[in-house]
């Protein structure tokens, strides 16, 4: 975890997470999260080179559904939940293809 010790750039990560932070927040979180990251470095004590990672505590396999069409939502309910819509479509600010 050598590179980890450099700590994180809260501003950059917040961008990845699409959350605008105030400078006050950035400063506060930077300190708090550096503490947390320092704390979790205790995991380096452990040699887990040949330990299998656990993604599911109690794994099962091949949970499949038949290819059958079921109920969809009432269109009006979907539109009522949308903050902004036009002609049955959900309106968003113009997407400038990035």
């Amino acid at each position, binding site marked *: *975890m050598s*590179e*980890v010790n450099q700590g*994180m750039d*809260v501003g950059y*990560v*917040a961008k*990845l*997470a*699409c*959350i*605008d*932070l105030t400078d006050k*927040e950035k400063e*506060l*979180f930077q300190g*708090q*999260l550096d*503490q*947390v*990251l320092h*704390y*979790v470095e*205790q*995991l380096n004590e*452990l040699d*887990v080179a040949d*330990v*299998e*990672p*656990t*993604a*599911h*505590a*109690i794994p*099962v396999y091949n*949970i499949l*559904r038949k290819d059958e069409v079921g109920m969809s*939502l*009432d269109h009006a*309910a*979907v539109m*009522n*939940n*949308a*903050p*902004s819509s036009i002609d049955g479509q*959900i309106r*968003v*600010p*113009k*997407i*400038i293809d990035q």
Partner: protein
Amino acid sequence: MAELHKLTIAELSELMAAGKCTSVDIVTDVLASIDATEGKVGAYLTIDREGALAQAKASDEARAAGSTLPMLGVPIAIKDLLNVKGQPCTCSSKILEGYIAPYDATVISKLREAGAVLLGRVNMDEFAMGSSTENAALGQTSNPWNLEHVPGGSSGGSAACVAADEAIASLGSDTGGSIRQPAAFCGCVGVKPTYGRVSRYGLTAFASSLDQIGPITKTVKDSAILLEAICGLDKNDSSSIDAEVPAFGKNLSDDTSLAGMKLGLPKEYFVDGMDPDVEKAVRDAVEHCKSLGAEIVDVTLPNAKYAIAVYYIIATAEASANLARFDGIRYGMRLDGRDPAELYGKTRAAGFGPEVKRRIILGTYVLSSGYYDAYYKKAQKVRTLIRNDFTEAFKQCDAILAPVTPTPAYKRGEKADDPLKMYLDDILTTPVNLAGNCALSVPCGFSATGMPIGLQIIGDDFQEETILKVGHAYEQTTEWHTRKPEIV
């Protein structure tokens, strides 16, 4: 007649079956109790008075027509992260402002099938991120035992409403202790079922591989009844497991002997900095179980001490993706922008509280390129070690006894601005979520300052019946669960 709101599911079911009271009587009584104490407790976000009375009336008619459903006419409070068709589901967050759930969570459908009455929606830490219900954007909840103190969290409202007799029972969710810890803080019984026992469909996800829904009740028997009602395979949840569901309620006998039972005591769970009152109460409880015939054996969970580190990597990583959907596009709050990116940034900045932002940022970071192996992958491997510890331990015992929390409920604001300190309090509950097995919390005493203390009884995968039996035997031979806070 006894004040109905103070009774249990089991007691009320008998009274209703015997025609001594109706569901309408119960709901009316509970609503009155809410009116009397809710001003102090603040457990509820929304109370569905008309709906509850209508459901109560319907269930009385059903009973008259011969229905004997297990939860018929019993009013239940719901943690505000469960989707109920036609109702808001705020998760105590501003970002879900205006969202109306278009579907029922599977546990809600099951409660309806069991005849329960949905009373209202109770407070929690925003998106279940917290241990004190102080991270709640829409209201403050107090501990009924001392209004200056926190009820615990994240299911603080679920525990507070039951402790204050503002509901007969409630549903909470437990990702790192969010049922057991508030249950302990408020003197209730709470069960975190084995992962996959209860469908997560309709439960707003915090950390998908850890979340489980479970009951918070006044007695172990009630937890057994409510758990039985919500368990079972669900085709809508790929992580739901096809394990047979025992009759948890009926199978609890009045025989309180623990003879022939081996109960493990993990030395690692008596951490330094632990409140002496808590340690004494738990050690007394262990002695009590011994007096009921149980054999106490020492077990070791050497990797449990890494649980906090592992938990706060895995849970926040999963959360960073699970909460990405709250973007102001399809539902909820929107602050507009010149382009989608600006809309996202402004909406999520205004919609999320500080703890949620902190955890999303931490989770985003541990997954980001160059850090995945160092943090997430490593945490998943240590998670394996933690699970293996339990597998080994359960070769030597039927269940494990431990404290739920290092301290009793503390004063509001005491830890609010020290996240790490707050996180460390989860040290005794998170190992079970990481391992996937089950555990319950049952009252086992009070601190010098009069705050409740919980005993944690941990079981192996799908061994809910065992921990309920131990919990029931302990509870029925002690009087802690009969005490009520002054305000009721």
